[in-house]
């Protein structure tokens, strides 16, 4: 009689067993993939292993940008509520404001990720790690440090908080410097603590070190001189570019105002512009050597050819070309030496329409320099309107075109190499680069000899002299364009020079933008900077003097 109860129990048991088995089969076979995925999604995490960013060195191996390992401290506010002790430990070790941290934690309470503090020095992070605080996590990262600070800021540039290049070399060589992030797979528990490293997918690949062509000693000295000049003349800005004639390398490139790349927190951004590269100026009289070169190339002029500049002014169309005073009849060399507008304009008008433009074009005015420094200005050099004598006359003394200081330096480099145009680089070169001849060596030699006259007695820039060396150079003072044409009160003072003139070693361009004061020509403002920087450079590079210094004593 009671047998039915027995069978009922057995039957129910079998049915429920079958049900369970069916469920297991269902989950294991049909739903397996979905469940596995969901499980992994809750416990498996991928972490990136940051790569050490390459060091940037100057040509002598001084570090200009170095990465140091730091730690980002983070938490998951949605899971963790810090107790008072944890909060105290965090604020004490990390030097944080407790109220501000609590406010941030409250505001981000629903988020799953919040940085407590980034860029924590390694030692402090270890200190914190040792406390074993619940819900506090550590992510390795790197911080960039620039030992030479504002001296090299424009060339080297900066990286952002995520170590990505923002400016300068850091930006243009970012791919080379950054290396390759590594990745690993980890198993995490409910609270987010790493339980186990499951797999290293790839190890981080360190970035490549980069050696620049800069010489930090010259860079420091140029910066100091430029800074002093900007202070004295209350100038808006100033730039200096120095090139090595043998290799086309940039030895120094300095701008003022500059900025501190180690602390961008209170940055005013105008200091960040690399003006020597991004800003184009009308070069004024500094193009006159090229006009003279065009004259020599025509075959109708010699350095001694006489040019009548009487009466010290003349009209081209409606444009009045005038000199400071009447120089009378002077040679072509003296036109350059005294920087006669009338003389050079007369010469240019006697040449073929395209002659001066053509020489400037071959020297590289109005073309990319292509050093890899970001934001490079192409300047302005156009052959439109050359049929107009006014255009040709103004081009001859440096108006109606615009060049960056770097472009001007490159143009002078083609003179310093006796007519060979070589590429300019900001990265150290191991082999002398291959150049292309653009000017005849003998004619360039004649131009250089005439340019030496500029720094001799009777020239416009005796202040550019360097004791013991012959200096070939040219001053320039150009008016800036204001709201109503050229502004008579805003000037750019320039000096471009080559030392030693006999066997050139460096080319240097100094540009002082809007100096204030009574006498603010290129010869008084820019030439002294050139002289002081060049004198130190000659000594530091150990260049043999080419100008006789009378022996003061015998040994």
């Amino acid at each position: 009689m009671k047998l039915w109860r027995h069978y009922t129990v057995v039957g129910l048991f079998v049915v429920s067993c079958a049900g369970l088995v069916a469920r297991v089969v269902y989950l294991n076979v049909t739903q397996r993939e979905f469940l596995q995925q969901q499980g992994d999604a809750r416990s498996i995490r991928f972490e990136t292993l940051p790569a050490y960013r390459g060091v940037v060195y100057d040509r002598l191996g001084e570090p200009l940008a170095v990465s140091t390992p730091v730690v980002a401290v983070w938490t998951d506010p949605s899971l963790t509520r810090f107790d008072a002790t944890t909060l105290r430990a965090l604020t004490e070790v990390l030097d944080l404001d407790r109220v501000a941290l609590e406010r941030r934690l409250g505001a981000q309470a629903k988020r799953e990720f919040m940085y407590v503090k980034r860029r924590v020095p390694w030692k402090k992070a270890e200190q914190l790690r040792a406390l074993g605080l619940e819900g506090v996590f550590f992510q390795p990262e790197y911080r960039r440090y620039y030992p030479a600070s504002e001296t090299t800021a424009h060339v080297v540039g900066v990286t952002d908080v995520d170590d990505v290049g923002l400016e300068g070399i850091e930006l243009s060589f970012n791919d080379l410097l950054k290396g390759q992030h590594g990745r690993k797979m980890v198993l995490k528990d409910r609270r987010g603590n790493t339980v186990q490293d499951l797999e290293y997918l790839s190890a981080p690949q360190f970035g490549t070190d980069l050696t620049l062509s800069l010489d930090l000693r010259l860079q420091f000295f140029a910066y100091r001189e430029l800074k002093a000049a900007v202070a004295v003349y209350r100038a808006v800005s100033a730039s200096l570019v120095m090139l090595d004639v043998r290799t086309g390398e940039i030895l120094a490139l300095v701008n003022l105002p500059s900025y501190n790349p180690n602390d961008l927190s209170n940055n005013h951004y105008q200091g960040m512009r690399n003006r020597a590269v991004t800003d184009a100026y009308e070069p004024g009289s500094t193009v006159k050597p090229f006009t003279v070169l065009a004259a020599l190339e025509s075959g109708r002029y010699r350095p001694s050819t006489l040019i009548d500049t009487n009466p010290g002014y003349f009209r081209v169309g409606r444009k009045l070309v005038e000199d400071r005073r009447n120089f009378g009849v002077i040679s072509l060399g003296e036109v350059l030496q005294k920087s006669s507008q009338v003389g050079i304009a007369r010469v240019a008008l006697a040449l073929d329409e395209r002659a001066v433009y053509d020489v400037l074009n071959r020297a590289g005015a109005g073309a990319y320099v292509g050093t890899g420094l970001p934001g490079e200005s192409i300047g302005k050099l156009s052959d439109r309107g050359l049929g107009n004598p006014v255009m040709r006359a103004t081009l001859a003394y440096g108006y109606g075109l615009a060049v960056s200081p770097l472009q001007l330096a490159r143009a002078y480099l083609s003179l310093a190499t006796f007519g060979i145009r070589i590429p300019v680089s900001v990265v150290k070169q191991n082999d002398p680069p291959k150049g292309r001849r653009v000017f005849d060596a003998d004619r360039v030699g004649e131009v250089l000899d005439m340019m030496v006259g500029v720094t001799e007695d009777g020239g416009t820039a005796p202040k550019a002299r360097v004791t013991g060396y012959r200096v070939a150079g040219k001053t320039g003072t150009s008016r800036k364009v204001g709201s109503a044409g050229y502004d008579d009160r805003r000037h750019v003072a320039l000096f471009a020079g080559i030392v030693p003139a006999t066997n050139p070693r460096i080319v240097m361009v100094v540009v002082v933008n809007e100096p204030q004061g009574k006498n603010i020509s290129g010869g008084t403002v820019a030439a002294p900077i050139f002289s002081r920087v060049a004198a130190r450079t000659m000594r530091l590079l150990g260049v043999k003097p080419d100008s006789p210094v009378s022996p003061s004593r015998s040994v």
Partner: protein
Amino acid sequence: MSLVRFATWLLLLVLVVASGLQVARTSQEVRSLHVLREQAQREQDEHLAEYSRLLIERAALSAYQSVERTARDELGMSFPEDVERIEP
């Protein structure tokens, strides 16, 4: 026949147990290697921190300004402002 079958079974059993033990050993080894790797990673970070600190310190010491200051103030040196030619 039955002996051969028994031997096969035994062999398979031994193999299964051995491979099981090997699995356990390997995962233990993986774990300790991970620990080693973690340690090495930390050491590398430590060395990198030290290396970069030393690089920066060297840069600070060899900075043009500080070299010049030391030369002038401590060693009483001066920069030759005039070129002097000395003939042998």
